[in-house]
């Protein structure tokens, strides 16, 4: 099933998705990875604010390569998500509804997804040139000093991803691996 998703991404929309759904995302999403997550939550503790509206937001775990002249963004594939597991439950509790990355999530993140009606999407790791063709606009909106790790506001069209963890606790990595295991 191919599902079109637009942002803002509500809990209601998230609840309709199931692990295994192929989605294409259109709208505004935000990049953040290790250093940006750490700083974002430290800043929130002090100011009660985020650099963007976290409510119904999708965060893309990515640190793009620099844009060449004429490009909106450089190559921009997903980074490995478990490194954001320390921060994700808090962001989900505060309104984040979607995460895009690659690789497995920990139990605390999966529990927070179920509790908050949020989903985790996988984008194709290493397919960074292909993915960046779906990113039409990019601007750094916070933490510019972090270089590739700065928070970028992206406008994406038909960004390709797969639902790995849904709001009911299904986990595509586990179910698909079991289907093809012959060891």
């Amino acid at each position: 099933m191919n599902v079109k998703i637009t942002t803002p991404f509500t809990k209601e929309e998230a609840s309709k998705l199931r692990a295994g759904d192929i989605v294409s995302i259109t709208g505004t999403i935000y990049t953040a990875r290790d250093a940006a997550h750490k700083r974002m939550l430290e800043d929130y503790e002090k100011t009660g604010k985020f650099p963007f509206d976290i409510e119904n937001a999708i965060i893309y775990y990515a640190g793009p390569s620099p844009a060449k002249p004429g490009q909106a963004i450089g190559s921009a594939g997903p980074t490995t998500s478990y490194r954001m597991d320390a921060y994700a439950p808090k962001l989900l509790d505060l309104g984040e509804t979607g995460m895009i990355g690659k690789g497995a999530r920990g139990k605390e993140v999966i529990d927070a997804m179920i509790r908050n009606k949020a989903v985790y999407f996988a984008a194709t790791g290493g397919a960074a040139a292909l993915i960046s063709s779906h990113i039409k606009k990019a601007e750094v909106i916070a933490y510019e000093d972090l270089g590739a790790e700065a928070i970028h506001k992206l406008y994406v069209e038909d960004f390709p991803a797969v639902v790995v963890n849904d709001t009911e606790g299904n986990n595509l990595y586990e179910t698909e691996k079991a289907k093809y295991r012959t060891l």
Partner: protein
Amino acid sequence: MREISATLITEEVSKMCISANYFLNKDIYCALENAKKEEVSPVGQEMLSQIIKNADIAKENNVPICQDTGLAVVFVTIGQDVHITGGSLKDAINEGVRKGYTEGYLRKSVVSDPFIRVNTKDNTPAIIHYDIVEGDKLKIEIAPKGAGSENMSKIYMMKPSDGIEGAKKAILDTVEAAGPNPCPPMIVGVGCGGNFETAAILAKKALLRPVGSHSDKEHIREMEEELLEKINSTGIGPQGLGGRTTALAVNIESFATHIACMPIAINISCHVTRHAVCEL
């Protein structure tokens, strides 16, 4: 004594940083195409299609295959009759990395300290391994390595009584634990023997070997073949979304070791395993 200028080394390193990151090597590209034909999982097939299409786009547009253009890992094999002029070899290599990563619009992914974590903004320092040999040639190999797969790597200080079966189990366990994280299909580099650091360097060197090549030691070759079959039976599949293509190759290097030691290092790499070579 043959003289080689530091400027020439800088130029070559710069060019290799760029080419390694833009152009997927033919051995891996062919292995991906073959895997796509044989993959039984529809999602797995789709993932392999995207990966192949991505390599095509990167090549056509001269852009990085993956945004993680890696730490620049450099293997230098220098003849003892070579004399570098106009600067040090190390500085020449780092200058080449600085130039290549800047001019090639490659990502700067190096922080100066593991705890303070300030980006050096030019992707230096490179990780350089030197080997001094006979002759008057200089061979430089560059293997930019992303962190997603590097973080899934492991070293085991095993006992001799664990034997070859113990080593196979350790390798398989490492791949299973890595699962979808290192962007499968993976290339698994293994270093057996030596000591703590030698095993790790051998594992990294094993990744330089082309996909489809095998060790010329019979028992190691059998180990490579058996492990590839087992790894591709785990079900992990392309991107961890299920299927038969979990690894494209298991490359194993071995070396002499201590009577009490059996170190096994496993360096996991991704489908964008990069490698460029030049000989001056």
